[in-house]
């Protein structure tokens, strides 16, 4: 009974999919005795200028419907879909190469593959093809047999989610869980099966994925904030989402990575923010700092957390703005007490 039809003209051999817009349509031929005028199904690109839509004129500028459309399955459509957003940006400064890639969320097949690898269901918005990486080369110091060593630290969703608790031991429950459980016990005693317990808030202590020949060791050094506060020109900036979940409307969980490259140094911030309504707020920050001239690579990891009740009290003066503040990790960081900091230095 189900059919998906894409216009042949758009999927013909000459089509290059330079633009991500596709219009699929479905009604192969006008239906006789249709109780309302035949609606216009047309292929349009996003570049087409659009007029504001009084209904009577909405279809006048449309091209005529193309001839018999070709039948394509959902899989075929997926296979020819262009990648939207951007397929990768890169910059090399001071021997350090920073690459970011932003692609659409995973499709059904990719989600299935990831679920298999992880053993848990990925978050609702899963940017499994996104990545931020920093690559460098440590020059050989001249000792015999010594070679240049390349290193890389990368941030991706799969590795971040692999660190989410999959046993259910760290599992939080929504605020009304006790009441919900009690209410349902009387009604549906037969339903005992819980979908495999795991930390469905997707809390991770991910600090990035490091290549084998590099490792981090604890250090007393600190990231030099004074140098980073200076308004040095920013040669490269990006903000890359790795995953996001609304916790079934009980809050939010989000992991994103920002990076800025200046002429002499760079800073990366991978921030995990989680709000479970009426329960808890949580921020986990990983910063990577590279000073190009010294070949210095520092990594700082910080945890912040507080109860919903405490935060609510602190936010009281902000009144109407509270919901917006609670959605914004960058503002919330001011209100959550620091639980601990670890600074490490990269050694090769």
């Amino acid at each position: 009974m189900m059919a998906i039809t894409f216009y042949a003209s758009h999927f013909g051999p000459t089509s290059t999919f330079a633009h991500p817009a596709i219009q699929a349509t479905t009604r192969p031929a006008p239906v006789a005795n249709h109780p309302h005028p035949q609606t216009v199904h047309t292929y349009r690109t996003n570049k087409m200028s659009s007029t504001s839509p009084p209904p009577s004129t909405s279809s006048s500028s449309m091209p005529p419907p193309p001839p018999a459309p070709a039948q394509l399955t959902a899989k075929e459509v997926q296979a020819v879909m262009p990648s939207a957003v951007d397929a990768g940006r890169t910059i090399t400064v001071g021997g350090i190469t920073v690459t970011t890639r932003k692609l659409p969320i995973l499709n059904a097949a990719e989600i299935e593959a990831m679920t298999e690898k992880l053993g848990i269901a990925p978050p609702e918005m899963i940017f499994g093809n996104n990545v931020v990486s920093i690559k460098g080369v440590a020059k050989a110091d001249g000792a015999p047999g010594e070679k240049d060593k390349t290193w890389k630290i990368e941030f991706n969703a799969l590795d971040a989610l692999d660190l989410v608790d999959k046993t259910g031991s760290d599992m939080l429950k929504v605020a009304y869980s006790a009441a919900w459980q009690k209410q349902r016990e009387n009604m549906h005693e037969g339903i005992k099966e819980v979908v495999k317990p795991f930390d469905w808030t997707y809390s991770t202590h991910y600090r990035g994925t490091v290549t084998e020949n590099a490792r981090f060791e604890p250090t007393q050094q600190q990231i030099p904030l004074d140098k980073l506060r200076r308004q040095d020109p920013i040669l490269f900036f990006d903000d890359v989402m790795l995953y996001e979940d609304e916790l079934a409307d009980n809050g939010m969980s989000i992991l994103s990575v920002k990076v800025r490259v200046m002429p002499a140094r760079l800073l990366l911030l991978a921030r995990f923010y989680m709000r479970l309504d009426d329960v808890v707020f949580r921020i986990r920050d990983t910063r990577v700092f590279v000073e190009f001239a010294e070949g210095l690579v520092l990594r700082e990891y910080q945890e912040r957390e507080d109860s919903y009740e405490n935060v609510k009290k602190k936010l009281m003066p902000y009144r109407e703005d509270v919901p917006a503040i609670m959605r914004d990790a960058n503002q919330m960081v001011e209100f959550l007490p620091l639980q601990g900091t670890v600074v490490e230095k990269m050694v090769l």
Partner: protein
Amino acid sequence: MPGLPVDLDACIERLYKRELLAEPVIEAICAKTKELLMRESNVVHILSPVTVVGDIHGQFYDLLEIFRIGGFCPDTNYLFLGDYVDRGLFSVETISLLVCLKLRYPNRVHLIRGNHESRGVTQSYGFYTECARKYGSANVWHHFTDMFDFLTLSVVINNDIFCVHGGLSPSIHSIDQIKIIDRFREIPHEGPMADLVWSDPDADRDEFALSPRGAGYTFGAQVVKKFLEINDFSHILRAHQLCQEGFQVLYDDRLSTVWSAPNYCYRCGNLASVLEVDDLGARFFNVFDQAPENAENRIDQQPAEKVPVEYFL
């Protein structure tokens, strides 16, 4: 519309241009919509042809795109499956337009309640903040959320296709059990009304299972099969879950998810679809990408090369 002190056609025309209606107009429209919705059953029966729309989430330009693709009201009949507000930038404009269209063409436009049509959820996910910013007070939010309490919970097309926002409930075997729910209230945390707007299918299972978060259900293949048999339906049509392809069909074509917010939150890069049910009851997905206006109007998300540079620490 008798007894309504505003010109609906003029309102609709303004809303198509993304102009806001004045607060007293919203108040009057919401009051009238309540009267209209109050008379609807918890299970509204309609006939095809109808175009079914999933989550929109305030993506106003994508709603206009749906009308351009699927036809404007009243030339095309529409069934919206809920989640009109939150997340997107234009929740107020989106719900204002949909409510006006419902009032103007009550038998050609049907609106089902989604889990975001609630006071609690809209306070967290943007609609409340948007109302307060665009109108300077929360009054408009109160008018809309009071009206949400009257939205119906489900629609049956051609006595054959069961349409709901989320999914099935262990408390509901027959649609007669939906008809007796007292729906004129805030969406509760538990019970059949909550399940209808919240639950998700789980293709790897047969029965109901508890969600790991400690509340809510997923429903499996046998649950769907039994529900369809008992009610003599052939298909379940629901929204509620983001899919990159814009739609997903499960359980041997017994259940479809329709997702109608392309490039969700202006950053997911996903496609969207509407599902057209023709006069014979056959189903066709109409897949589309985001509206061109999104790029010009989005204020928080910019194209990659224009991401606002930030001296973050």
